[in-house]
């Protein structure tokens, strides 16, 4: 396949993504209107009692006194100009607020993705190779346990063990709050802080990919092309690594793409437990504060991210399997 053809394909997918993202934004905007109460009430509540004039002034400032459709039209118009608006609660434009948190979430997500995909695929492959032996059973049982445990509970147990009892790792945060390291020391400090949240978030997905990989490996090994390869006298290792693995990876890659959205959701819990300064916590706080502009901005960026990752997955799909056409 020519690179120009692939380029056209990516461009087309990007254009298709625009109405998807816009649809997500409009739907979220309308859904959020269903919840009673607004940002002005919450702010006045936090103020511990404020005069009615104050609440009314807040509503006017936030534009909450305008009709719903006017607000929606204004919001969509701004979104099209990539203006995500202003968070009155945070006294700051929305975009820098999100960007400040995006890197932490991306770091956690990418580390998790690498860790869970790498180990999940490896464990699934080994389980398939050792099928129906005690090693296969061990991997399968461990995967089921990891899959079944709630994220927040795993997180807290890891903190208790590695931070409190063994004193090997920090309990929470992204950096040592008292140290303010620079350069390579800062890099190492962040890496130390990343270990526990990344493991916590990875365990679930690692189990998922391991189970899936094992199942598809076994399925592939029963197909005719493997029998043919064996008949041709290829070594078992060669069949597994050259042929079966490549085909078994396809469903795993698909699921990994779909799971990016879920990973964002899971990071809300893990970020809360480990005080990881990412988007998840910001979304959580803005939801309860009815900080509509900020929340919609987060939804917008998240949906862009999910759409983008799925385009990347489709491209990987094409590269992995020449039978997939992009015409």
């Amino acid at each position: 396949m020519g690179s120009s053809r692939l380029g056209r394909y990516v461009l087309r997918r990007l254009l298709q993504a625009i109405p998807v993202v816009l649809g997500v934004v409009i739907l979220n905007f309308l859904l959020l209107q269903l919840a009673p109460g607004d940002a002005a009430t919450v702010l006045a509540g936090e103020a511990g009692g404020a005069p009615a004039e104050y609440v009314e002034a807040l509503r006017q400032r936030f534009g909450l006194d305008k009709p719903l459709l006017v607000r929606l039209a204004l919001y969509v118009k701004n979104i099209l100009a990539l203006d995500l608006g202003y968070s009155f609660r945070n006294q700051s434009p929305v975009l820098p607020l999100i960007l400040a948190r995006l890197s932490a979430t991306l770091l956690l997500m990418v580390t998790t993705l690498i860790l869970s995909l790498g180990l999940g695929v490896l464990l699934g492959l080994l389980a398939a190779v050792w099928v129906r032996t005690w090693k296969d059973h061990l991997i399968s049982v461990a995967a089921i346990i990891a899959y079944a445990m709630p994220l927040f509970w795993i997180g807290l147990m890891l903190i208790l063990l590695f931070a409190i009892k063994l004193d090997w790792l920090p309990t929470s945060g992204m950096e040592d709050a008292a140290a303010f390291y620079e350069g390579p020391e800062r890099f190492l400090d962040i890496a130390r802080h990343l270990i526990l949240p990344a493991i916590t978030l990875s365990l679930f997905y690692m189990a998922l990919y391991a189970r899936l990989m094992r199942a598809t490996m076994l399925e592939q090994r029963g197909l005719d092309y493997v029998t043919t390869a064996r008949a041709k006298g290829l070594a078992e290792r060669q069949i597994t690594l050259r042929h079966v693995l490549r085909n078994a990876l396809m469903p795993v890659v698909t699921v990994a793409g779909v799971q990016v959205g879920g990973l964002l959701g899971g990071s809300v819990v893990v970020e809360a437990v480990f005080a990881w300064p990412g988007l998840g916590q910001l979304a959580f706080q803005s939801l309860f504060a009815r900080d509509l502009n900020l929340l919609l901005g987060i939804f917008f960026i998240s949906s862009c991210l999910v759409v983008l990752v799925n385009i990347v997955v489709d491209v990987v799909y094409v590269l992995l399997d020449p039978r997939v056409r992009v015409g």
Partner: protein
Amino acid sequence: MTVRRCCALALMSVLVSATGAPPASAQKAGGTLVQITQPEPPNLAPYISTSAPIGQVTAKVYDGLLEYGFDLKPKPSLAQSWELAPDGKTVTFWLRTDVRFHDGRPFTSADVQFTIMDVLKKVHPRGINTFRDVTAVETPDEHTAVFRLANAAPYMLSALSGYESPMLPKHIFSQGDIKTHANANNPVGTGPFRFVEWRRGELVRLDKNADYWRKGLPYLDRIVVRFINDEATRTAAIEKGEAHVAGFGAVPYSDAKKLAQLPSIEVTTKGYEMISPVVELLINTKKPPLDNQKVRQAMAYAIDRQFVIDNIWFGYGRPATGPMSSNFAPSGLYTADVTKYQTPDGVATANKLLDEAGFARTDGGVRFEIVHDITPYGPEWQRFGEVVQQQLAKVGIKATLRYEDVATWLKRIYTDYDFFLTSNFLYNLPDPVLGVHRAIHGRLIKQGTVFVNGSQWSNPRSDELMDKATTEPDLKKRGEYYHEVQKIVVDGSPIIWVFELNFPTVVNKRYHDVIASPLGIYTNFAAAWRE
């Protein structure tokens, strides 16, 4: 000028006490204190929002005209002395002459005038009330500020801390719209710590102000305020020594008890004397059958306050007697001489009152049904709701529980009045005018305004007494007015005042003089030091 002399002495004593009780040699300079504040503040603009976490950060950056001792009496701060005119309508503040903002510009009376008249009186949620009688702030010279008032406002002098009324630099905040000012999240004050950075979702860094007007202070090099969403993780961070102080329920009550057993941790309930939170059950007195005074009194008898304190809040509280906290006892404003609902035969009395009110038990033993809305502030409030349900059931009132998020709950209670009974807690604040009137005065039945008179109950006599107390400079007379108010309101029982909440503050024992004022974690930590 007696007040000035008093203030000079007070200044000396505050300098001694503010630097901590132990001898000067005991205190060491240096070190970083990590404070946990929960949740993360939405902004760092205490002049526009009184959201609790904001003040916990900005009180270190902004000073006020005054500070306060544990006896709630004012002490000098940016104002080195002050004088109240006999009619209470003029208050003159003489300011320190050696104070500079963190950007190096001097602090003057023009900053006081701007802060009060152009900011706090207009956009501060509580300042609108606190300074409503201030008609002008005159500036005869750079270091004198004269407050002119339409009526005497004795309560105003208790609301001039750096937390409640932070002094802002006019040269910065007069430029542009105060409501969306660029420095909202980049505070510039005169306090012992200057703002360095805010890593959203993570921390705020405040470094020592080397040019602080209290020479030799602060001792600490840095304060880092951390934000940790999960309560178990907050406890772990304190236990491990990664964080050193946490208050205002940031550490769960059960964990505070556990942490207190550790040799490295001290748990104190001091530092809330100017805030005085009171946990209550708010009754909608317009909703039958709760419009019947006997029914409300019966409910007040049915609630076992000590059980709630011991079993839900792990002992962090004392039974409340009425709308005013016993923290007002030293000033003479509080009285316990009111109808007492916490009695050994409370259930029997409640049953008798409900019978008298005409609500007999049906076959199932139920007299009537209500819905109890739980304050959406965390798990202990849910457990409190369950206890209320059980205790009301004993007297034949069937309560169904409802739990909604903050915005929905606030709208239901204060805008729609669509409720029977809800739990809540209100701060009494440093003066009844600021924290108590709002819940019981008839003028403060304001639909759509949160944390005011949601019970919609009032009494002309108690309203009149509160109005008199508002402008009465004589403390003894104020005390008499408030004693009568408490008797009338407790008898009317529009609210069941359950207990005075004593928040636990956990402090790492290597740090000293951290909680050094009745505003606790809302103060500037200038005198705090590390071993």
